[in-house]
């Protein structure tokens, strides 16, 4: 492997451990500790991708999460591939495979490059102005647009990785482990605060940890050595938890923050097997200290996007941290002192610096003087007007700036270079601050938006360069002071540090650097990923898009995966200049979470697959499973749907079950229905208010069916309630409505009628319910409970008895949802399966047939009983359901009563419940089908729909319940149910199809 671009550096990279990796199929080598980006640069590879719109060649531009260009696909296993990974972030591991995205056939020769030639036709928003003709062609245009858009490729198989969540409470959260974050963490932990320090890199120390420059010293040592010592000190402080590879994603209200910890993305496929991939930390911190640092700005000039053009600070990190030279003949272009640090680092590592181009007239700061000692050529008051080199920068052209900086003068100088570092100043990372609700203020000296101290939430502060301190002296002084004040600390080990730095004296900022060509003939890029240029911003303004949000959306500046970290400020600056507005007044576009992209897997955590939602099972569940039941989901419950025997279809099973229940005896697990225990001296009064019918005179030991309305008069639940004692009832509700009913009833008790002496307790899970119905049900029950007098006189329909089965207390209700003679045994769930088995045993000579929800629905439909939620849809009143009898006429009030008398609610042509019989008794209607009178009308008038439909084996014909306009008046009339391919003739009938006199209840 060529070592030309490496220098000896074992501090942060392990140059004794060589790793092999592949990029676009080519096998290459790097070292442990490299990122993919540093390893590529070491192999002299800058060209890594193509831009979104113009497909221009793109190179590695930064050394961090703000990277807009070096976005690659990692791996090609369809279940594990990761699209849009930043090469500057992914740590190298043995066997890593990476691919350029959005180019074909390859990144060097991309057919999409034709867009670059077409670029005059493709300014911002071009797609709004065309693709409209012919109208039918939009689908075809869209096909091409969609295929040329998008960056990487989604996985196509399910993700096998595991993601975890962690809940963390602390006194102080410090976000960012650079020099100020480390100071804050140390101060906080040393003063008895449970402290959490997070950093997204694999080691602490930010940029200072590799600074190593004579100009910057603390207490007589280079800043990096000083910081290294501090880091060692904090590693063992009690109260301090340090997490690296953990990035803060979102700062929500009430100091709720989300951080993502990367656990295995830096490991080889073998090393990561069986491990959790990422962990989302859900943090509540009493106080937050934001130390997120700042990001260097690029400069905006003609053709500023070529591979090899990088942020100057990135070049510095690549050489000082990774030991990689980004080029052999490096130039630097700057408007501030930072690039001079890079120059010194490069010089010390033996790299040839072609020149430094500085737009300022002059700077005499310490660091510039250091550079001048090395005889590096500096072109003061110059700017770059053009660059050359399609796949790698090869030349820059520079000219002198006019005095006011608006134009260029003199002769063009052409300089050869293979790498250009640019530095346009620094942008404080204020994303998290603004997410939390903090407001920014603008500092015009250096054109930065900073946290406004007067508009900062009281439980947080920002320190370091994200707070606008760029000089190390200021950083140390202010961080120390502010943290001490914030945490109420008197003395700090950072008081009275002697700090030396190079103070920057001269600044100059030109948002859009001039060229010798008119702007229309230049390409000054703002957003390197989305290909928006300064021209696009001006075009947007010209077309009337004045708001910064409009400009952003129209030009897509700042809408890429980097969310404008490099482009937002320049876009704002150009808007301000062009419109003559103050940047501070313009403000910024809204920062939204996440700060860097978060996997869906990490956000969801463990609640996938079998943990997607709770599963509620009855006490008899395993018995149903063993007896081959099929299940349906009713809310969160699993209910036995039907029990197919010997290869039966569902239809066959349900027919058999339904017949058996009426011919002999059927058994149903009804445990899922809601059960609410109601006690108190006002219990009857309470029932009177929540049900439509009257309850005060219900005798102890009797059961009654009740209907519940919402205040808008619509039926929403129903069930049988039993009076167990003077002040004691047990209410049943539907399965799906149980939780809702309990919540509503409690709401009324606590907030409307606190004067009522009533207590509610949910006993849905506490008791199980075994329902036995059919002409032989009495025989079964008498075997199971021999001592109970089951005569109709002693134990009439709609009454209950306390009893004992094998020493176990139970309640037996005579309630029937099927119209058959029925009993419901309520027993504590621990014993339920045992009692079920006793019943099964007692019934074995009577063909006792377990039946599920489908049969239960069929049997009740034969009797015209409604199922709320199926025959009702929230728009039916009791009268609509032909249940006028259930409205207590003498009752003063009940929930929903007033609504029943509104002008629309009393209309007699509302949809009302009816029965339907098909002319062809074998034709079974589809639930949901609509009912019409006239077929050849247009539009067809729909009169109602089929709510429940079955083939009844007990009547040997199909039956259905439906709701129809003016249903009460339609008995005997004929209608149509129009299906897609045929029209079915139906006749309206009574809703009760079977045993209209209810003789079978006492059979």
């Amino acid at each position, binding site marked *: 492997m060529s070592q030309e671009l490496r220098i000896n550096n074992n501090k942060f990279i392990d140059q004794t451990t060589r790793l092999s990796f592949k990029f676009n199929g080519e096998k290459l080598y790097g070292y442990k500790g490299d990122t993919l980006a540093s390893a590529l640069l070491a192999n002299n590879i800058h060209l890594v991708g193509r831009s979104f719109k113009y497909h221009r060649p793109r190179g590695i531009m930064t050394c961090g999460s703000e990277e807009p260009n070096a976005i690659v696909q990692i791996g090609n296993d369809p279940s594990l591939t990761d699209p849009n990974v930043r090469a500057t972030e992914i740590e190298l591991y043995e066997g890593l495979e990476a691919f350029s995205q959005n180019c074909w056939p390859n990144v060097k020769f991309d057919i999409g490059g034709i867009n670059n030639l077409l670029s005059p036709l493709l300014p911002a928003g071009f797609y*709004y102005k065309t693709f409209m003709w012919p109208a039918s062609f939009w689908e075809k245009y869209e096909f091409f647009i969609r295929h040329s858009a998008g960056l990487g490729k989604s996985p196509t198989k399910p*993700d096998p990785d595991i993601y975890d969540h962690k809940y963390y409470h602390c006194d102080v959260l410090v976000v960012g482990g650079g020099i100020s974050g480390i100071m804050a963490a140390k101060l906080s932990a040393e003063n008895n605060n449970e402290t959490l320090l997070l950093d997204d890199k694999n080691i602490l120390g930010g940029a200072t940890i590799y600074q190593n420059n004579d100009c910057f010293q603390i207490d007589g040592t280079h800043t990096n050595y000083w910081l290294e010592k501090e880091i060692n000190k904090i590693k063992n402080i009690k109260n301090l938890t340090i997490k690296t590879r953990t990035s803060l994603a979102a700062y929500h209200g009430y100091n709720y923050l989300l951080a993502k910890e990367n656990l295995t993305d830096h490991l080889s496929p073998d090393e990561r097997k069986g491990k959790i991939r990422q962990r989302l930390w859900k943090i509540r911190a009493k106080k937050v200290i934001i130390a997120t640092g700042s990001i260097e700005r690029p400069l905006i000039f003609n053709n500023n996007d070529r591979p090899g053009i990088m942020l100057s600070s990135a070049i510095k990190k690549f050489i000082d941290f990774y030991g990689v030279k980004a080029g052999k003949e490096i130039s630097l272009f700057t408007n501030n002192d930072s690039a001079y640090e890079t120059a010194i680092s490069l010089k010390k590592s033996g790299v040839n610096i072609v020149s430094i181009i500085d737009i300022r007239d002059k700077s005499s700061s310490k660091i510039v003087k250091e550079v001048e000692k090395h005889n590096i050529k500096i072109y003061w008051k110059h700017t770059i007007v053009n660059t050359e080199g399609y796949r790698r920068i090869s030349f820059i052209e520079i000219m002198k700036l006019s005095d006011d900086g608006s134009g260029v003068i003199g002769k063009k100088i052409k300089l050869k270079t293979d790498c250009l570092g640019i530095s346009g100043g620094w942008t404080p990372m204020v994303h998290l601050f603004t997410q939390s609700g903090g407001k920014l203020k603008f500092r015009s000296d250096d054109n930065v938006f900073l946290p406004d101290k007067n508009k900062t939430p009281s439980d947080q502060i920002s320190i370091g360069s994200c707070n606008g301190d760029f000089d190390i002296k200021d950083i140390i002084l202010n961080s120390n002071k502010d943290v001490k004040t914030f945490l109420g600390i008197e003395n700090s080990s950072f008081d009275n540090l002697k700090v030396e730095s190079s103070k920057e004296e001269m600044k100059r900022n030109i948002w859009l650097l001039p060229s010798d060509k008119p702007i*229309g003939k230049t390409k000054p890029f703002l957003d390197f990923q989305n290909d928006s240029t300064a021209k696009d911003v001006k075009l947007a303004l010209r077309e009337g898009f004045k708001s910064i949000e409009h400009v952003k959306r129209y030009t897509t500046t700042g809408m890429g995966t980097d969310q404008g970290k490099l482009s937002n400020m320049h876009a704002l600056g150009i808007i301000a200049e062009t419109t003559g507005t103050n940047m501070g007044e313009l403000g910024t576009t809204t920062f939204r979470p996440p700060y860097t992209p978060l996997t869906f897997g990490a*956000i969801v955590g463990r609640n996938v697959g079998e943990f997607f939602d709770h599963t509620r099972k009855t006490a008899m569940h395993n018995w149903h499973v063993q007896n081959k039941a099929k299940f349906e989901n009713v809310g969160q419950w699993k209910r036995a749907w039907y029990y197919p025997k010997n290869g039966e279809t569902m239809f066959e099973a349900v027919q058999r079950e339904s017949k058996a229940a009426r011919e002999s005896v059927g058994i149903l697990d009804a445990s899922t229905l809601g059960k609410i225990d109601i006690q108190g001296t006002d219990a009857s009064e309470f029932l009177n208010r929540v049900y439509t019918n009257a309850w005060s005179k219900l005798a102890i030991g009797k059961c009654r069916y009740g209907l519940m309305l919402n205040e808008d008069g619509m039926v929403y639940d129903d069930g049988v309630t039993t009076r167990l004692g003077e002040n004691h009832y047990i209410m049943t509700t539907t399965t799906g409505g149980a939780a809702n009913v309990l919540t509503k009833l409690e709401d009324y008790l606590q907030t409307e009628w606190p004067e009522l002496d009533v207590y509610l307790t949910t006993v849905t899970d506490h008791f199980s319910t075994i329902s036995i119905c059919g002409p032989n049900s009495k025989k079964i029950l008498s075997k199971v409970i021999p001592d109970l007098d089951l005569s109709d006189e002693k134990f009439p329909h709609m009454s209950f008895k306390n009893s004992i089965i094998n020493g176990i207390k139970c309640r037996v209700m005579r309630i029937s949802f099927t119209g058959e003679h029925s009993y419901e045994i309520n027993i504590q769930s621990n014993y339920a399966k045992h009692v079920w088995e006793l019943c099964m045993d007692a019934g074995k000579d009577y063909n006792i047939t377990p039946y599920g929800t489908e049969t239960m629905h069929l049997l009740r439909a034969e009797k015209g009983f409604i199922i709320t939620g199926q025959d009702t849809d929230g728009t039916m009143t009791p009268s609509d359901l032909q249940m006028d009898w259930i409205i207590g006429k003498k009752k003063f009030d009940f929930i929903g009563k007033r609504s029943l008398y509104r002008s629309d609610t009393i209309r007699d042509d509302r949809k009302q419940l009816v029965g339907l019989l098909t002319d062809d008794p074998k034709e079974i209607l589809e639930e*949901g*089908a609509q009912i019409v009178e006239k077929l050849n009308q247009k539009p067809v008038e729909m009169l109602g729909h089929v709510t429940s439909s079955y083939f009844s084996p007990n009547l040997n014909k199909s039956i259905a319940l439906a709701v129809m306009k003016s249903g009460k008046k339609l008995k005997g009339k004929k209608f149509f149910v129009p299906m897609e391919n045929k029209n079915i003739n139906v006749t309206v009938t009574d809703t009760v199809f079977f045993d209209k006199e209810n003789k079978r209840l006492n059979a």
Partner: protein
Amino acid sequence: MKNKYSIFSLIKNAFSSHENWQRAWRDPEPKKEYDAIIVGGGGHGLATAYYLAKKHKMTNIAVVEKGWIGGGNTGRNTTIIRSNYLWDASAGLYDHALKIWEGLSQELNYNIMFSQRGVMNLAHNLQDVRDLKRRTHANRLNGIDAVWLNTDEVKKFCPIINTSPDIRYPVLGGTLQKRAGTARHDAVAWGYARGADQLGVDIIQNCEVKGIKRDGDQVIGIETSKGYIKSKKIGVVAAGHSSVIANMAGLKLPLESKPLQALVSEPVKPIIDTVVMSNAVHAYVSQSDKGELVIGAGTDSYVSYTQKGSHNIVEETLRAILELYPIFSRMKMLRQWGGIVDICPDASPIISKTQVKGLYFNCGWGTGGFKATPGSGDLFAHTIANDEPHKLNAAFNINRFVSGDLVDEHGAAAVAH
């Protein structure tokens, strides 16, 4: 039309480096008086102004917007367009809109990228199946394209859905409207703004309404941050802020303004080319032309005007997404945001006169307003111009809350509540 957009004008302007494009809309100061004022410069408000000018020849009108046009819910929604609602009244309303969508780019000479890629609603339990079949039958008989798909057919239409019978709430089938799809939301606002402006409508941005003046029971003008503006017809289209404006006129509405969140993933090559919605496994997803997955679900449960919601909604939404699309677990969320949606008790809008003469309200669209934008604008313009609702919005009057004649679309609105 001056300033026409086409490939020819693009080519022509390329020669002058695109420096000669005209403003899409002017930036006028408000006049002292207008024949009508639309309060709210979102899609619905701008569409209303456009149709007032275009179809009713009312050009001496203004749209007054407190921020930047399209900056409210129009710029924040998940861009789903469909008309497969249950009741006749809703079907009529939304399909009226859908028919306009189908020619809107050409009508406005602005490419709003209406993509009829189909919208599927999935069923996960037996009652879902009944409800969706009921809706499918009703749609069909109302002349709206809708078909029922069984599980295999769902899988065929969108292969990446997990239709395994072993997941917690398996897909039991679904209903598909093929004419439904998506559009580019910002473009709708900009297209209508440009169209209205060309017809003479004044679009006044950064102009906040601070009061509504009445003379007895007739409205006579609005107080704004740019001064007092007279008008005898005021149409309020302020979405989440409807109650705030109503309050200025002494009116109360049956609305609650809640956060609705949405999110996008990083852009990837085409992976899903339809829109899929599910109530029971609650989330909806589509892919924008840029390649981002666009995802949303239900509202937060509390009233808030912050345009932010709580994180648990995002987590629950993505949990549903991963349940149905387990391949998306490694996809990354790029950005999340929120809007303010005005929720109406029956999940149907209010497009109505009020008891104050000349004051009209168009609100209550809740989570489903974007799809109706052209229809809403058209019908509201009719209502304002004629001082009477059109037959297609007659059912959506504010009096239905008194009579009880609600249009309950909770199921079809496809949003869990």
